[in-house]
């Protein structure tokens, strides 16, 4: 147990700091949520060259080629955040597709896609969920019919963020209709410009379209676009699905929100009393602060484990369930603190940031549901974490 950084990391942090001070013209620059503009592409390029993006991607594929070091990655994240300077891009292509390709792609696929992806020249979207296949993803129905050198794809995907501007999609398609559900799926790369692809924005409860639906009608894709072997797409996808779950429920977000809430309580008043002076509010704040702290320390713990190449086990399994709920509860608290003002959603001189809190409150509920619902998370925790049996298959189905 030693929370003081070793000399190697002290000097690394210095490097990062000096790089940031040399580049403080980037400070406060917000990232374009859609396609990166030229300035961002140049910035990404510079970050890769200096090892602050695509850090562990081999140089032959355009990366920086450093060996993995979670502590250095954390230092980069911390310093960039503090300097309010945009970090390297983190889209689904970079965080999910590239790792998959590195693990299971052919040499040709790696050469073809990794460099352009990490540089931000090519944007990817993910085609996994379907309207009928959420928790039960493996039941997905989008079909790829074998037609010589191609597959002809028909079906529908949902929850595909950035599909509206993505160049490419990595997609799960049922290519072996007769195989058992987990063994009939292939992981296929699809060019979004292929005829027959229709992208429709998916409006959510927040009033925004954070996601899309993607419809496929006789979309022709060469078989060479399969990653891994035909019929093994489920296994290929799971390599990165676990990765995605790790990303949800990040405690740093909770810490930041807690700080924002404390500011709010120190600035807003009710009947002349600062909210921070209301003992009932304070008690609720302390309860939340304790949860935030415990989750931050928990992440230090699993961080150390992965740094040592150990399995963080339960301490990792609970992050999505606890983290998303905690973020949601924090937003709910902020709204309650603002009371009627907390319901303002839209342009108004009475908007004391409630719009942001309300968006978070709703979007986080989506995160509690998405990427493995809370119920699925509890199944995973009890089965993988506690060694309890899986739900027995029902003899008869549905209502008696």
């Amino acid at each position, binding site marked *: 147990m030693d929370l003081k950084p070793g000399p190697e990391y002290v000097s690394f942090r210095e490097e990062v700091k000096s790089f940031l001070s040399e580049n403080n013209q980037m400070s406060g620059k917000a990232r374009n949520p859609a396609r990166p503009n030229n300035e961002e592409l140049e910035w990404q390029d510079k970050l890769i060259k200096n090892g602050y993006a695509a850090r562990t991607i081999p140089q032959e594929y355009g990366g920086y080629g450093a060996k993995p070091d979670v502590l250095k990655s954390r230092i980069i994240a911390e310093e960039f955040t503090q300097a309010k300077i945009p970090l390297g891009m983190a889209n689904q292509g970079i965080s999910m597709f590239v790792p998959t390709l590195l693990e299971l792609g052919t040499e040709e696929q790696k050469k073809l896609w990794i460099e352009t992806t990490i540089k931000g020249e090519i944007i990817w979207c993910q085609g996994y*969920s379907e309207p*009928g*296949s*959420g*928790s*039960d993803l493996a*039941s997905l129905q989008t079909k790829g019919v074998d037609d010589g050198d191609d597959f002809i794809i028909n079906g529908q995907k*949902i*929850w595909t963020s950035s599909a509206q501007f993505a160049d490419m999609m990595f997609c799960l398609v049922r290519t072996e209709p007769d195989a058992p559900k987990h063994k009939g799926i292939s992981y296929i790369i699809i060019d979004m410009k292929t005829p027959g692809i229709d992208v429709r924005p*998916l*409006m*959510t*409860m927040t009033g925004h379209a954070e996601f899309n639906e993607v419809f496929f009608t006789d979309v022709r894709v060469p078989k060479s676009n399969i990653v891994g072997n035909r019929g093994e797409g489920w296994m290929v996808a799971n390599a990165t699905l676990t990765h995605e779950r790790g990303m949800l429920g990040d405690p740093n977000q909770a810490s930041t929100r807690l700080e924002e809430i404390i500011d709010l309580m120190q600035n*807003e*008043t*009710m*009947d*002349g009393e600062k909210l921070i002076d*209301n003992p*009932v*509010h304070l008690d609720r704040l302390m309860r939340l602060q304790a949860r935030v702290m415990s989750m931050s320390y928990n992440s230090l713990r699993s961080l150390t484990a992965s740094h040592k190449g150990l399995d963080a086990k339960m301490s990792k399994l609970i992050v999505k369930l606890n983290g998303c709920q905690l973020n949601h509860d924090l937003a709910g608290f902020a*709204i*309650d603190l603002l*009371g*009627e*003002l*907390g*319901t*303002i*959603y*839209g*342009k*108004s001189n*009475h908007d004391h940031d409630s719009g942001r809190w*309300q968006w978070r409150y*709703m979007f986080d*509920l*989506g995160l*509690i*549901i*998405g990427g493995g*619902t*809370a*119920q699925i998370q*509890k199944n995973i925790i009890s089965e993988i974490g506690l060694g309890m049996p899986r*739900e027995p298959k*029902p003899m008869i*189905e*549905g*209502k008696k």
Partner: protein
Amino acid sequence: MEFSLSEEQEILIDSVGKMLDSLCNIDNLRAQAAGDNNFRETVNKEFSNMGLRGLLIDETYGGSGLGVLEASLVSEQIGKFAAPALWVGNSVMAPISLGGEENKDLAEKWLPLIASGEATACVAFNEVVGKRNDIGLTIDEGKISGTSIFALDGEADPDIIITAVDNDVYLVDAKNEKVELSLLPTIDSTRAMTELIFHSCAAEKISGGKDLITKVIDAGRVVLAADLLGTSQDMLDKAVEYSLERKQFNRIIGSFQAVKHMCAEMAADIEPCRAMIWYASYAQNDIPEESHLVACHAKAHLSEVAHDLARVSTQVHGGMGFTDLLGLHYWFKRIGLTRQILGGPDLVRKEAALAQGF
């Protein structure tokens, strides 16, 4: 002793329910959210036609002379359909404000018009419930100045404004150019909220003082609580219905114990609230010594129960609950707003404690 609804009350529920069922659908809610007023106008015209607007107004003024219980039963239906009806302000708080014997002339002037639907009243009591930051009203020589937010039923070009400053209730001519009305953008597009800015605007005092303020707020809270009951009961019904249709893992999700227990917990939480609403509403007219306390508890308790229920029901709906496709979020957001108006739960519980001398 008979703690149940009368046949007349059941008929009232049924007729209001049928009327709203025929008028309300997701397309209307969407159009309204997009700024179209037709839906609201249709609903409120129908309320006039059915003579509902004067439900609480004395027969002598052309109303039905019914009580807060009936107002709550109607409110529950309004909540169930997330309908944009003028109700808690125009048809509950305003009539009670003007109902007292001491205000006969004001009553004679306005109550018949409200009962017939020819006039509507906007009610602005938010700042006597709790003043946020520098928002609030002052009165000087019969003229009101300042800002009041989250006023009720101010969206339909009201004729009068009932408001409270310090320890008195006032009536203001809403057409007076010394007062500006504007809609507040909130999460809930099914219930409009209004901001009022008074520039030393003339006001008539309504006698009744602090007791009247309490009486009016209590009734408003109970009727809002009934709205929460209707909205959340409907969210539970929708969750059960969805769970019996949606299949995952070759089973309807309603056959999974986790989903069943989520629904059972929602039912266990909401069911006693119905009796609580009945009692709290009945108490407003018939048990004066309890009316304030039960009103506080009804508003606070329903706010908590409905708030949790909205989240769980959405979870049972899974991804569909999060999208706009089913429109479930209109109910979710109506609960989110109603929880906070006329006092959020913390504030109201504090009042409940005070009411008992704690």
